[in-house]
């Protein structure tokens, strides 16, 4: 596993992240996969809400907001945008 891997919850707005690991389990895992949170796919961090949670992501041309509980279990490598 690459050491540069960060959880989506830690990335700054504007960052592009190539996913490499989804550690969410159960039915929600399936749901996230269906929505495009798949290893290899690129996700853009759009914006954080005022209190930092939830965070809006752009995936497969769709905006999806995730709570920290989930986004902290999705990992990837930063490939563009601002570095965190």
């Amino acid at each position: 596993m690459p050491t540069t891997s960060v959880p989506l919850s830690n990335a700054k707005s504007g960052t592009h992240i190539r996913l490499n690991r989804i550690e969410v389990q159960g039915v929600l895992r399936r749901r996230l996969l269906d929505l495009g949170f798949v290893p290899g796919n690129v996700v853009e961090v759009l914006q954080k809400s005022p209190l930092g949670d939830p965070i809006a992501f752009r995936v497969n041309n769709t905006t999806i907001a995730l709570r920290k509980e989930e986004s902290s279990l999705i990992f990837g490598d930063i490939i563009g945008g601002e570095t965190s």
Partner: protein
Amino acid sequence: MSRYTVALAGNPNTGKSTLFNTLTGLRQHTGNWAGKTVMMAEGEFSYDKTTFRMIDLPGTYSLYSNSTDEEVARDYIIFEKPDVTIVVLDATSLERNLNLALQVLEMTNRAVVCINLIDEAKRLGVRIDLQKIEQRLGVPTVAISARNRIGIDKLLKQVKLVASGQINPHPIHIQYSDEIERKLAELEPSIRENLGSQYPTRWIALRLLDGDESLLSSLKKRMNEVTPDSVREVASYGRTACH
């Protein structure tokens, strides 16, 4: 005059219901399926001296996340076995939509892929290589605009060809990792033994590996209903499982 059943599957907001209304006009009512209180619209249309009964399945992103909508759509395709399933895709977000298409193609080979909103995609500068998509998916693929009645005739032609068996599509076979393939090969013989060939064996094996409880309970319910033959099978299955 022959009569076929056509199911419409697709993500929400892909224009499934627009296509449904375009084809059936006002001749529709809602149906209640598989013991669930989810309503599906049902209607009829004729094409080329053939009557088609069309069922508008609930719009879903997947058939595996086990929401009631998804269970209803899944159960319809597996247990009611429509003569053709039309998978409606949104031309402007194909990547997300193809997830459902691949899931349907693992369940049935009697499918037609229908890429809707093609005019909208053109306007956005999206170019779609229909031939290539058809080649990769292995089922007839048509581009339409349900709203502006573009491509409807081409779609119906393919639907009839598949329904009548004049075309027998061979959808893309998804190859999994060696470990999964090994387990599938282990499971498939006993699935065939217990269920015969009435359901897609490989797909059932995949669902079992995934621990899909909801499919299992649907299956059990079905097996306890239908013919005396399958009831006997259930009984012997129960015995082996207990001891």
